[in-house]
């Protein structure tokens, strides 16, 4: 463990304030700002030291379920750093931006082929944003047909963004429980469906890593009620080249380019969450649309039925570009192989853990599976959280924990296709050793991280989100 890292703001700022008069209207002049300047040598040491306290996929295995922590290939970053990517303004004359537009057009086509959708908009900024765009499209679609539908159905195993997006779009949520087999309970679905149902949001394989085999049947039920079927693309990495949302009967889908297409997660973002639809929904997609024109590619804003804009520009081009580079590199066969290896890795690791951790539900799994620390908790008082913290000591990023909620003490594990067998064995060995270890050691973990276990409830209680707040509390307490 390391000494506290000083804050940038702990440095002084010179007294007085430089004269700013004449630059802003009289009376609006600023007269104080605590923003220390740090010379480059010290600045870099500060941030590089911080980076060294952080764990990324380049640091070691990162089997964080649902997040698809693939390796981020460096060629994609190199391409994204070109000035012909960075120094482009989205309002430029189309004639100046034929390169960017062509990348986007090609990317739309590739995503269409991968998903079996007819039209794609690259505009949404992340997965949840794509969900939101899709919900707006659902609204616009039903409204265009003069239908009033105000409910969206979401399985209990859905990712939190699904209900949140539907709610943001003004829908009432109807949650349906999973069946014994971890799949959607079709009876419960039937009961939930009505002519108030605007859409069902689903991911397949679902968050348990289980493929919903009866998806066609389910699609028919939804469509029979006049509702739309929405695909949460976060799990697309499991099925590329095997099936597609289109083939399964979905009407709309979002993609997470930062999951399936290997773009960096950036410590939380930026990502990119394109949305794809079947032809009958195309007219509702966000504007502008990329179209052909006598001079090349152009932007079309004249789409009266469009939902309009979901963000201020064209989408996260720097991410889209990386994802397109990745798709080119892999090609169709390569993407299929990614899915195959991701699923193989997941099933291998699952098998290695069985007998040490409960792994509810029947075989096979797709790209991820959910184990449970329920028995450990019962027998030794070791929770999923403790297992996670102890994994840190072994240089392995913990799995997602406590999600999905329907599995007690859940450990949601997604190794991705990029881990070698050796690395999978190490993950397994570590997790098994923790299950067998003296609980005292596990409960006190991590032992070798930059800091000890972090007090999250104190953070909530204090709610100190800035240096400013920190200082005013300190002064207050004097």
């Amino acid at each position: 463990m390391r000494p506290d890292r000083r804050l940038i703001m702990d440095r002084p700022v010179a007294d007085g304030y430089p004269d700013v008069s004449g630059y802003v209207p009289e009376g609006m002049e600023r007269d104080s700002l605590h923003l220390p300047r740090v010379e480059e040598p010290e600045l870099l040491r500060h941030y590089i030291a911080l980076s060294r306290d952080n764990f990324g996929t380049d640091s070691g295995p990162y089997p964080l379920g649902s997040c698809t922590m693939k390796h981020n290939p460096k060629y994609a970053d190199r391409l994204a750093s070109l000035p012909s990517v960075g120094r482009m303004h989205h309002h430029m004359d189309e004639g100046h931006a034929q390169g960017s537009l062509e990348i986007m057009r090609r990317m739309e086509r590739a995503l269409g082929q991968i998903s079996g959708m007819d039209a794609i908009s690259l505009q949404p900024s992340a997965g949840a944003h794509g969900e939101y765009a899709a919900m707006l499209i659902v609204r616009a679609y039903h409204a265009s047909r003069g239908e009033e539908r105000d409910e969206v159905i979401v399985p209990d195993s859905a990712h939190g963004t699904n209900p949140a997006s539907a709610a943001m779009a003004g829908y009432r949520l109807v949650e349906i429980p999973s069946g014994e087999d971890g799949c959607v309970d079709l009876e419960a679905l039937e009961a939930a469906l009505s002519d108030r149902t605007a859409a069902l949001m689903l991911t397949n394989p679902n968050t348990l890593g289980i493929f919903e085999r009866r998806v066609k049947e389910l699609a028919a039920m939804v469509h029979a009620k006049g509702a739309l079927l929405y695909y949460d693309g976060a799990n697309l990495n499991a099925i590329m080249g095997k099936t597609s949302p289109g083939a399964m009967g979905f009407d709309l889908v979002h993609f997470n380019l930062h999951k399936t297409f290997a773009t960096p997660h950036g410590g939380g973002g930026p990502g990119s969450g394109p949305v794809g639809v079947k032809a009958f929904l195309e007219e509702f997609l966000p504007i502008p649309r990329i179209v052909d024109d006598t001079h090349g590619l152009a932007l079309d804003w004249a789409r009266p039925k469009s939902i309009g804009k979901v963000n201020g520009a064209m989408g996260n081009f720097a991410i889209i570009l990386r994802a397109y580079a990745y798709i080119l590199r892999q090609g169709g066969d390569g993407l299929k192989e990614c899915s195959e290896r991701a699923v193989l890795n997941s099933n291998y690791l699952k098998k290695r853990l069985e007998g040490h951790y409960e792994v509810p539900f029947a075989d096979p799994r797709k790209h991820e599976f959910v184990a449970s620390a329920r028995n450990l908790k019962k027998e030794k008082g070791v929770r999923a959280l403790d297992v996670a913290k102890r994994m840190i000591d072994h240089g392995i990023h913990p799995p997602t924990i406590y999600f999905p909620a329907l599995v007690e003490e859940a450990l949601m594990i997604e190794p991705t296709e990029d881990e070698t067998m050796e690395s999978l064995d190490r993950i397994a060995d570590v997790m098994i050793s923790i299950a067998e270890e003296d609980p005292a050691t596990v409960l006190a973990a991590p032992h070798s991280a930059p800091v000890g276990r972090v007090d999250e409830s104190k953070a909530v209680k204090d709610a100190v989100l800035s240096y400013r707040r920190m200082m005013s509390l300190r002064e207050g307490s004097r």
Partner: protein
Amino acid sequence: MMDYIGIGFEDELFKDVPEEVRCHLPLPKGISEREVSKEIGRILSKNRHAGEVPSFLGVGCYDHYIPAAVDHVTSRSEFYTSYTPYQPEISQGMLQALFEYQSHICELTGLDAANCSMYDGATALGEAARMCARLNDGDVFLAPRSLTREKVSVLRNYLIGTGVELELYGWDDDGGVDLDDLEGRVTDGLCGLYAETPNLFGVIDARVPLLRAMTDAPLVVGVNPLTLALMRAPGDMGADIVVGDGQCLGSPMNYGGPGLGLFACRQEHVRKMPGRVIGLTEDTRGGQAFCMTLQTREQHIRRGRATSNICTNVALVAVAAAVFMSYHGRDGLIALAKENIDRARRLMDLVSDIDNVQSPVFDNHHFNEFVVELPVKPEKINCILARKGLQGGLPLSAHVPELGDCMLLATTEMHDDDTQDRFVSVLREVL
């Protein structure tokens, strides 16, 4: 591995995928890293970027110089290959960097709390409007008519689930808030009030500090963070929420994305705030530590009742902004802001020397950009400029039709005298 699992060939792992949904992936074969680089390079060479074709576009997205130190930090793979810092013990680096980002934003805005990013300036505004609806009962959200069509559309889309209506108020002769128009629209049913400074016209609006007195409804102020080095903090003007786009703080334009949605608010409202926030706390040894906090506001816990659906944000862009701000510090930001104003003034003066051109249309303080009125359709001018290797400003017709003959011209420290002079002489020539 297959032996161990007990399967003979990989496709057995997909036996749960029914035949009826099977399909083929009709993409071409993969190619090598070298070929990818060549192919993408070839496509991108069709672009004419701002280094090749000087561009006078702004509207929230600017071509500023990015110190190499910024790129160096964001290319540290421990940062950029990490996920959201759900495990604080091995994410202290990202957490502290984001806490520092929040801190810088709070200093600039004069508020005590900031989140660690929204997608971009437009969605930050949308989220702010939604937050107003959580803070307040009203059914109208007031925003200036001087907004881009993008912002208006996003705002409408974000208000869709709240039942709150968007209403737009006008501008005055000097490009600032039309107080009379606004006055008439402020009613008891006001859910929230939004104003910008600098606004769409690049005007630093002296009337924004007057708005607080007009309503008790939440006041949202939109800013350019660079301007804040010179301008009084919106928190001190009574703003409850401050939003804006932080792309100008060390990130490339990237054809529009990613941007950096700034979002700050008063401490008393933090629990109604959207987005991720990083908080200060301690570890078991009593040492300083950071973690994501107030997560019960968020979708992964509160699900349908979360303050926002946002999950992935633009953390790395926020880190770039933190590095950028520390690289410049207070005095560096002041100098940079002044330089941007000076550049804009110079261009404004040069353009105003052209016959038939009014520059600026609004006689006021400007930041980065200003509106000019042209004798010819701005779209047409841009076509001609393009042929001469220049990218003109934004025609305003699609955004504020009243200003159909106007163009919004932006300039930054990246335009030296020669570049501005060349632009002006070409403009003079074509008019």
